[in-house]
């Protein structure tokens, strides 16, 4: 049956059809929906959210060692977290086929950097495949499993945001019957002692030679001959772009397996064409390999090394072709993402901002919806580095203030899912080294930004089963935070009291923490009664205080505040700050 699928749905389908049994991941845009599409195959596949990518990688690798085909997925920065097990799994090899699907985010749509994860395949000396559309996502999963088991190696499928989130037609098939390779201990293979690793080290080099031979012969890498004036080597999403640009007069070398590079096949292709272009997003990964083999080509000297490509970018960069388009006599005001109307984080950041006009607090943030509190009107998040870094960066900054005799108080702010990811280790750092930091968990009871996935604190698993709830307060207390203030941040008076309490405690030399808990307004499983607030224009004094809560539903209309009924959910935070009692809840 033919179906429209995103690349992520197709990767999930491919795993099912390839006889996959075990999958683990931590959510991360744009990779999240791969695992989200697996519970539908629950009769055949076990799938789970792990606390973070390193744990997910290790769990999936364990499943491979135990003898089944397994999958781990992550976004590019998640691979940084999982890099430690990757490099050793690359030595030890696999029992069941083991695939890691890694999603890069060119143009930084929803990430903290723009890294090219292909370098990881090269430096860990494993095989890498790059599908160019959803149909190939499905097909390459089975191929990756085959390569993994044939060459005794983890295989990386590298995708990008455009592959993950674009839809195209996919022909579905039947699930392959892949029997369990019943586990038997193999200590020399799976115990990475220096003696064993030294032996594996040599095997890895031979494996690379074998894989390169395979890559040169694989139908995943194939030439499409047209005219001989222009030849284009392209991979991933650049393949359809190149075809839009060069059309049917050019010849193409389509790279589906991009590590090891099929250098001899490319050499033979290059010999047939006058000018050779290499079209790839981000770094000159293929280009460097091609040039190192002594093959002349045009690549990053013209094609931008950052941001997504598209046919127009390529046309402009190579041929100076500029598009014909019209501008209009109006300017659109910026509309970046904001904390939603009814966002449970609003009261926390409003309160912090209100109390920090003199800068006596320093706020270290983390990755999540709450990072958006760095924007007006809050301007409260001062750092954001990586998942779980909020507490540990705060710990380092606080030590400097202590060393330099500065009495500013540092807050580390991160979300519940981020806390479970590895923020909890930052809490241990604060407690162990006695840093003057108030760790705050803004707990919306879900992994919010990636689209509401469960985690160890929610009480549910990816497959929908009830799970043990790991307590945030319990873990904070157990590592040494004597005073943990749990508060509903939507109640501004209570939020103020919690902040005052935590600050008083740390000033008194006690370790204090805040857990600001209220479920995300968008979580579907939550029984949420939508309400509505309204401005009484006669009472409104036009003071604009309500716009300081940073809600997208509220704006000034002339001299009076106005609430948009399509956005407002009736959270009442604006009503709580209104000095004229002009905002009330109305029946809906």
């Amino acid at each position, binding site marked *: 049956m033919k179906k429209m699928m995103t690349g992520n749905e197709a990767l999930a389908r491919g795993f099912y059809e390839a006889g996959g049994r075990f999958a683990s991941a931590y959510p991360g845009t744009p990779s999240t929906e791969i695992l989200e599409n697996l519970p539908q195959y629950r009769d055949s596949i076990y799938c789970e959210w792990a606390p973070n990518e390193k744990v997910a990688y290790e769990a999936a690798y364990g499943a491979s060692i135990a003898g089944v085909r397994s999958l781990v997925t992550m976004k590019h920065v998640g691979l940084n977290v999982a890099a430690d097990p990757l490099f050793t799994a690359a030595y030890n090899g696999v029992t069941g086929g083991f695939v890691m699907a890694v999603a890069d985010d060119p143009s930084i749509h929803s990430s903290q950097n723009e890294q090219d994860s292909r370098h990881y395949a090269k430096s860990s000396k494993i095989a890498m495949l790059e599908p160019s559309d959803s149909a190939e996502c499905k097909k390459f999963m089975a191929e990756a499993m085959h390569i993994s088991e044939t060459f005794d190696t983890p295989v990386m499928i590298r995708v990008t945001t455009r592959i993950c989130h674009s839809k195209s037609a996919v022909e579905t098939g039947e699930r392959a019957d892949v029997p369990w390779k019943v586990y038997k201990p193999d200590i020399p293979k799976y115990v990475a002692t220096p003696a064993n690793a030294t032996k594996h080290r040599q095997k890895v080099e031979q494996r690379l030679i074998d894989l390169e031979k395979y890559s040169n012969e694989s139908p995943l890498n194939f030439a499409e001959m047209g005219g001989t004036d222009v030849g284009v080597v392209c991979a991933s999403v650049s393949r359809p772009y190149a075809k*839009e640009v060069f059309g049917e007069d050019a010849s193409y070398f389509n790279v589906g397996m991009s590590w090891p590079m099929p250098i001899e096949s490319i050499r033979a292709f290059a010999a047939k064409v006058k000018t050779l272009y290499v079209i790839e997003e981000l770094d000159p990964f293929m280009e460097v390999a091609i040039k190192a083999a002594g093959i002349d080509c045009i690549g990053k000297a013209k094609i931008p090394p950052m941001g997504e490509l598209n046919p127009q970018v390529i046309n402009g960069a190579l041929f100076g072709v500029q598009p014909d*388009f019209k501008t209009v006599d*109006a300017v*659109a*005001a910026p*509309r970046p993402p904001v904390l939603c109307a009814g966002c449970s984080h609003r009261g926390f950041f409003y309160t912090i901002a209100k109390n920090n006009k003199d800068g006596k607090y320093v706020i270290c943030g983390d990755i999540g919806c709450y990072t958006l509190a760095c924007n007006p009107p809050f301007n409260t998040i001062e750092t954001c580095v990586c998942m779980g870094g909020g507490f540990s960066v705060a710990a380092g900054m606080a030590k400097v203030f202590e060393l330099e005799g500065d009495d500013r108080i540092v807050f580390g702010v991160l979300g519940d899912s981020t806390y479970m990811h590895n923020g909890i280790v930052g809490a241990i750092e604060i407690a162990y080294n006695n840093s003057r930091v108030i760790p705050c968990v803004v707990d919306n009871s879900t992994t919010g930004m990636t689209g509401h996935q469960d985690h160890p604190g929610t009480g549910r698993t990816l497959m929908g089963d009830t799970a043990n709830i790991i307590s945030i307060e319990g873990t904070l207390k157990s590592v040494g935070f004597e005073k943990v203030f749990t508060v509903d941040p939507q109640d501004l008076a209570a939020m103020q009291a919690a902040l005052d309490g935590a600050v008083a405690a740390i000033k008194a030399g006690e370790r204090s923490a805040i857990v600001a808990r209220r479920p995300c307004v968008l979580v579907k499983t939550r029984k949420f009664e939508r309400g509505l607030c309204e401005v009484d224009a006669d009472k409104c004094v036009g003071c604009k205080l309500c716009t300081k809560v940073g809600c997208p539903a509220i704006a000034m209309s002339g001299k009076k505040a106005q609430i948009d009924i399509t956005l407002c959910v009736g959270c009442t935070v604006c009503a709580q700050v209104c000095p004229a009692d002009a905002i009330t809840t109305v029946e809906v």
Partner: protein
Amino acid sequence: MSDVKTILLCAVGGQGAILTSNILTDGLLKAGFDVKMSEVHGMAQRGGSVTTQIRYGKKVHSALLGNGQADIGVAFERMEAVRYTSLMKPGARFIVNDFRLTPMSVAVGAAEYPENAIAAVSAVFDTVVVPAADIATEVGNVRTMNLVLLGALLKELGLADNPDVDWEEVIASAVPEKLRDVNIKAFRAGVGF
């Protein structure tokens, strides 16, 4: 490639642009086209500017194009039409919802809302202004503006009564059961606009 048509949807997060493009692509596939759709999601927040591009025809290579390429556009909010005019082919048809959502940048006084948005877009593009909020309110739920706009779009494309695709069936399978009737009503109102 000359038969390939490109549709641009531009909206504010939370207005239902992705649901709309899912319905659109499912229906186009049923109608026998090769279809590619490109979107970027992952920032679950509402209130940000979002776009999706849908391309259909006999054979579609790239899901994504650059400036000056869209054959038809739908702006779910009037200022979003202004933001994405550069993606449109000169003189292309632009369906613009006469609805206004004030962004945070305007609310905090850092930017101004272009009061002349519709006039400015109409001066350059073949513009159809749809009062989708009024129509959606009339059929029973202001949040079905997206289906009104989908109806208007399919009528413009000449696909609303394509014999190979029952759009109402596609809609019914894409929306929650209790909102099925109101969404179909909104769609019909859009086609009839």
